[in-house]
């Protein structure tokens, strides 16, 4: 066992004596190291080993942490790249294609349009069977992209779209109400191919966020875990299904007429409805109908005025086309 006090230029005999002097080589019997020095040496050695072990553990833990971060970052970047790669350039511009139609419909009503091909038997059913996105809201809430986004987030597949696709057998209150209850009660969902415009708008907004920058700049693992959780929240499938829509179904409620409102806020008012063939950029249907819950019995109106109006509106549109 050598010593750092020795150099290669020293005589071996001198090195041996230096080693004896520092205690790395046994001394002659006449000069033994003191017990106090041995104790101090053992204590310091123990402390040194403990400190080294702690330092090594800390370094290894830090290294493992960094490796884990690298792996997590690479995984997230892979996810983000995969999400980005799943979108075509056309899909990325989906909202910019849709928004002009919506803002146009929200402007001055330009009259009714019914495409000729829609007048054929079952033509409307065929059109409505195509992948679609649906949005409904107050006509004043579609002024710009942000307003459209807000309206889309509040819009759900209501009785209008359900009854448009699967109309009740008659306009009798009992029949319409039964259809509405069946639709809202989770019966056979005939509008699976109709996605909320919100799915497309929200999905695109989230998927086009600067994920890569956030991932690369995340200083700690917990930041990456937050990003991962947020990415998991991105409704990729719903968005992709919405982006595959070929038909835009838009409904806009004009301001209510004067008079008392029902419990769900329903009042008589005009509703604009449009069907836009997105691939061809053609208005298939644009119509304006009045809804009025006054024809309903008082007990039905108190609870289902809005839903029944929607379903009735769907029947009116269908009958208007014929």
């Amino acid at each position, binding site marked *: 066992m050598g010593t750092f006090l020795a*150099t290669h230029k020293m005589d071996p005999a001198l090195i041996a004596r230096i080693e004896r002097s520092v205690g790395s080589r046994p001394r002659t019997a006449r000069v033994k190291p003191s017990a106090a020095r041995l104790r101090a040496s053992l204590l310091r050695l123990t402390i040194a080993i403990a400190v080294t072990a702690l330092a090594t553990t800390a370094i290894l833990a830090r290294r493992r942490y960094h490796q884990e971060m690298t792996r997590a970052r690479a995984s997230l970047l892979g996810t983000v790249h995969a999400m980005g790669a799943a979108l075509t350039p056309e899909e990325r511009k989906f909202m910019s294609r849709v928004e002009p139609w919506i803002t146009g419909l929200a402007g001055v009503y330009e009259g009714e349009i019914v495409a000729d091909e829609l007048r054929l038997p079952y033509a409307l059913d065929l059109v409505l069977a195509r992948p679609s996105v649906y949005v409904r809201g107050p006509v004043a809430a579609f002024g710009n992209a942000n307003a459209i986004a807000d309206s889309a987030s509040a819009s759900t597949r209501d009785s209008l779209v359900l009854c448009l696709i699967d109309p009740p057998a008659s306009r009798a209150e009992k029949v319409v109400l039964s259809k509405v209850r069946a639709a809202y009660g989770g019966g056979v969902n005939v509008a699976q191919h109709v996605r909320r415009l919100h799915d497309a708008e929200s999905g695109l907004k989230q998927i086009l966020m600067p994920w890569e920058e956030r991932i690369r700049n995340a200083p700690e693992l917990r930041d990456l875990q937050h990003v991962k959780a947020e990415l998991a929240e991105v409704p990729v499938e719903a968005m992709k299904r919405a982006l595959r829509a070929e038909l835009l179904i838009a409904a806009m409620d004009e301001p209510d007429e004067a008079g008392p409102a029902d419990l769900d806020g329903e009042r008589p008012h005009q509703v604009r409805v449009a069907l836009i063939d997105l691939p061809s950029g053609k208005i298939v249907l644009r119509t304006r109908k009045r809804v009025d819950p006054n024809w309903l019995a008082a007990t039905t109106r108190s609870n289902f005025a809005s839903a029944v109006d929607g379903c009735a509106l769907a029947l009116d549109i269908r009958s208007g086309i014929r």
Partner: protein
Amino acid sequence: MHGSLGARIPDLLHPVPLQRIDVEMTKIAMTFAFASGVSGGLFAEALDKSTVAPSTWEPAAYVSDLFLHEFVARCFQVRLGGRETPLFTTQLVKVLERPPADPAVAEHRRAIAAELAASPELRAELEQLYAALCKFRSLLEGATAGRKWDANRRQLDILVVAKEIIDRMAAGFGGARSGLAVLGAFGQEVQQSEPYRSLSDLLRYEEHLATVSLKVRVGADGRIQAFELQAVQENAQNPFVSSPIKRWLARIELFLRGYKFGEGEIMARLIDAVFEGLEDDLVQFVQLLVDIELYLGALGFRDMAHAAGLAVCLPEFVGPAETRELSALFNPLLLVHGGKAVPCNIASDRHATTVLVTGPNSGGKTRLLQAIGIAQILGQSGLFVPARAARLALAPGLVVSLIQETKADQTEGRLGVELIRIRALFERLPPGAMVILDELCSGTNPSEGEEIFELVVKMLTRLKPQAFITTHFLAFAARLEKERKIADLRFLQVELGPDERPTYQFAPGVARTSLAGQAAARLGVTGDQLLSLVERNIAQMQGAMLNGRG
């Protein structure tokens, strides 16, 4: 006798080097002293337990009677830088009181003493070497308080002096023709060894780790405006020089091994390692110090005699049948006490003679006997004897009886003590030894004392001694001289001057008077002098009585 253990021994006292100290014990003491700076008298302790060359002499038979310790303490003087240096007197007496049995040893010492006396340069070298050894001892034993707070500095100072000693030995005595050459051989041998090279490297490392070249810019006002470091050059050739990183690692290593965490601890370990390598050689300095003191002390005695107008010499040793002579012999104890030493000449035709010395009281007989005894001791020890020229015969022993002190527990009267003294003499006296007796059988009436005296002399002659005996039995001595019954008997008497006063010279024959009357007159013991004292005392007594009544 301690073994040499194959070590180099710079022994100045013996032709075949002799390890006279316990090397192992002394090394332990030296290591402790080097480490702690407190030795408890390492040199004195080691020398107290030291041995001397084999001797047939019994110190108890003569040391106290010859005042040997006082002689060494007062006459063996070494002056360094104008100041007298305290010597290891006890150790020097130990050497002198046991003259070596082997004549070659005395001859070896005589050659060294002669060369030193003849060569002032060699003596100066030896004195400087002695001064360095004293400094080494002083530093090692912690006698110097300065710098004691810095253990490394103190140890380095010791190593510096050790190197100076080795260098002086190697350089100063290479040309010596006597046994002094052993110093040169020792020094050169050590210089070629690894521990010495390490010592030199360490001292160079300590004083020259690196060279820093600076450029200093001085302003118009004479003040230094700036320093510019031009170069730093480490003394890379030195084996002790290592990189700064390695020095740091060494500090950490030492810390983990239980030492202090500091640059000083590294130096301490290196010093320790270098010192360990030199221990076998440094321990030899202990007995060397006394060896040198013996010769420088003898030279000091020579200087003292010269200063008093006296001469000393290295005696010639002759065979038993040859004439013995001591020319201008003086008693060195007289120099010590400030007395005037009058040299005298003593001669006898051969070794085995018994010389009866007669003469007046205070005629110098006892002083003569002391001088003869001291000369024999110094001569057989190989040193200068108190005589201008001397031809001595080797004696296998010495018995001296000069002083008869009365002791409180003495059970015998004066005659009884005298007889015990004679009995003891024969018990310890080997054949051929030197015998010195003062006033034999003076404790009884002359007629009976003379019978015992004659018996003693006759018996002594059978042991063939060289004997010197003083007596006041003048008639008896005259009869012996006249009868010539004892063949080996010789007679010396104190010479008297024209005024009947002793000249302190000695001539053949028996004195006619002890001049007791002269001595009595000199010391105020004549009838008139004693009568006047008696009358004075009576008058004082009467005066006191009258005053008491008044």
